[in-house]
């Protein structure tokens, strides 16, 4: 199949939500490359329960964008077959707990096909997963499942925290020959930014320093980037100069950028919504300590959800890592200010 030349017209800067940025990325990919296919539960007529695929079926037709039967293993399994035949399927798992029925297909095939075949079959599949909480969702609608994917060799795991990255990273995912688990922070879906699309941000394997500081480094991704920035702001009121890094790509980890920051500040904490035990923060803390031990004046802290199942809406505020919890953690460091 040929790649149609349909360059996306640049728009004048407007206020864009993350869902709109994602929608536009899908649109531009569909327009430019006719091997791109979008399917999943309710992504067609409805445009997805979060409206990320809105209008795409109308624009590209039901042969490019369609509603599948309701079965996640079926969605991933058939996407594998399509990718083996040269397509670039972009599939949606409606909420992240609903990727679990597809776990075997993702872990045993999506992650392993390329290695299994000595690189002869690549699977350029993008698995979009809305994740994390803070939206008042009922049970199973607020899980942070990133650790399952990041601990699986063969997967690339991305998560944008803002509309510009959402656009740029999703386009990179779809263009990537390797499968990408693309995690969309639900609570940031309605975040607005003034942007002109298309936009190209930093490449997908790089973390980004989004606030500079000298006293400590806060690492965050997806929904907690906002928490980290707010904490840095609050820390400043306490006289602390805090650097904030948006990881963007969870696997691979950008050791270079993050270690440089940690060596500079000598203190770091990672913030995520998922439970702490065995969470992604464990990898971050372990590898930063291995690589920068002599530079550290305190252990890398993990400021996370508690080690309990994600609670129902009324208890979310007590579960989620807040600016307060971050500040309490900062306080635990033995500052010599």
């Amino acid at each position, binding site marked *: 199949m040929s790649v149609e030349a349909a360059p996306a017209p640049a728009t004048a800067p407007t206020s864009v939500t993350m869902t709109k940025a994602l929608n536009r990325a899908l649109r531009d990919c569909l327009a430019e490359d006719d091997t791109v296919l979008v399917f999943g539960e309710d992504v067609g*007529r409805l445009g997805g329960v979060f409206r990320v695929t809105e209008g795409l079926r109308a624009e590209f037709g039901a042969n490019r964008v369609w509603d599948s039967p309701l079965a996640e293993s079926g969605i991933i399994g058939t996407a594998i077959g399509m990718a083996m035949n040269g397509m670039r399927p972009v599939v949606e798992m409606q909420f992240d707990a609903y990727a679990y029925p597809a776990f075997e297909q993702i872990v045993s095939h999506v992650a392993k096909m390329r290695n299994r075949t000595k690189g002869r079959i690549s699977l350029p599949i993008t698995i979009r997963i809305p994740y994390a909480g803070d939206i008042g969702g009922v049970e199973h609608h607020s899980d942070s499942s990133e650790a399952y994917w990041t601990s699986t060799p063969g997967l690339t795991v991305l998560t944008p925290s803002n509309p510009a990255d959402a656009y740029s990273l999703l386009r990179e995912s779809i263009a990537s020959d390797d499968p990408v688990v693309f995690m969309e922070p639900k609570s940031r879906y309605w975040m607005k930014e003034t942007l002109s699309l298309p936009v190209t941000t930093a490449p997908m394997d790089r973390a980004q320093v989004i606030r500079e500081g000298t006293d400590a480094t806060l690492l965050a991704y997806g929904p907690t980037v906002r928490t980290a920035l707010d904490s840095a702001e609050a820390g400043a009121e*306490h006289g602390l100069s805090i650097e904030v890094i948006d990881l963007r790509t969870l696997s691979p980890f950008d050791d270079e950028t993050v270690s440089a920051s940690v060596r500079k500040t000598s203190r770091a904490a990672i913030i995520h919504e998922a439970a702490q035990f065995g969470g992604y923060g464990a990898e971050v803390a372990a590898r930063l300590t291995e690589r920068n031990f002599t530079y550290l004046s305190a252990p890398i802290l993990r400021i996370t959800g*508690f080690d309990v199942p994600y609670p129902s809406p009324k208890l979310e505020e007590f*579960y989620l890592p807040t600016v307060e919890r971050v*500040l309490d953690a*900062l306080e635990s460091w033995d500052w010599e200010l």
Partner: protein
Amino acid sequence: MTIDVPTTGRSLPQLQPISFIGADGQPTDTPTEGLRIPSDATLIGLYRQMVLVRRFEAQVTHLTRQGRLATYPSAAGQEAAEVGATTALAPNDWLFPTYRDSAALLTRGVPVAEILAAFRGDWHCGFDPHEYHTSPAATPLATQTLHATGFAMSAKLKGEDAATLTFLGDGASSEGDTHEAFNFASVWQTPTVFVLQNNQYAISTPLREQTNATMLADRAAGYGMPGLRVDGNDVAAVFAAVSAALERGRGGDGPTLIECLTYRMESHTNSDDPTKYRDAEEVEHWTQFDPINRLEKYLRSTGALDDDGVTEIAEAAETLAETVRDAMNTEAEIDPRELFAHVYSRPRTAIVEQQQVLEAELAGAGFAAAGQA
């Protein structure tokens, strides 16, 4: 070739949905597979419960629009399937409902506040499953079909006189778990009734994109299990079919699949916009099949129901609506420390430590609080 496989029950269900009372409130002449129409006394009870349920759904949907609940999936239009199937259960039987089946929970006797706790966001499951012989409503689709099968298997092994009933949707029928449940139940011959509420949509996805089969009840044949297609808006048919299937199960004759043809009159949940995928005419079309109207007509025609009866039941429904409003206007007391209380049966040191972190935060003892002071 001599291969030892059962050869029983090998047929496809009749095309015409089993129905006793037509949409016009008249008795039908549809073949009913040996089932018998319930007595007027039973039908009055079913009518009453359907009216209550409909008022309940309307009230909760209204309160959800007002923001008193986080989300709510209404079963308006599906009262016959919800009430007919649930009423057929004996107290010892167990029900395995989904998020859509608050009406069934209500019918099972679960108090309003306990049903709605999950949707208000108080706690995942608000009631005691043992008290009502009712499992927590499952949100991950089709998973509960296996729980119902396993529960029934253990009842069978223990020699208990109990069956299980699980609801599932047309969408959920596509999940692998549904297949595994049908198969385990039939191989193990468990007393399980699968009530498939085919309400024509899985959120926005219409039935014809969910299956290419003539009917979902056709699946049963592939498991050596009886399958029935029932007019899911005729509560008499649902009640009769489910009662017989439960009886079959308790008698040791294994599971049954019952497809109830019905229609979801409301949006999927309050956050859904059905205009994106279906038009008003279709919804309008289905009003003629309304389960309550037809039963009222029928019972009036037999003389079992009159204006007084209808009024009395309507008043009971209003009382229920008031109970719902009261329940939802009373905030539940939720202790944040309960976050940690129920995860394991034995205390874990690391969780106790985390509880202390939260308690310190709540006591305002932290750095942040100090800064704000």
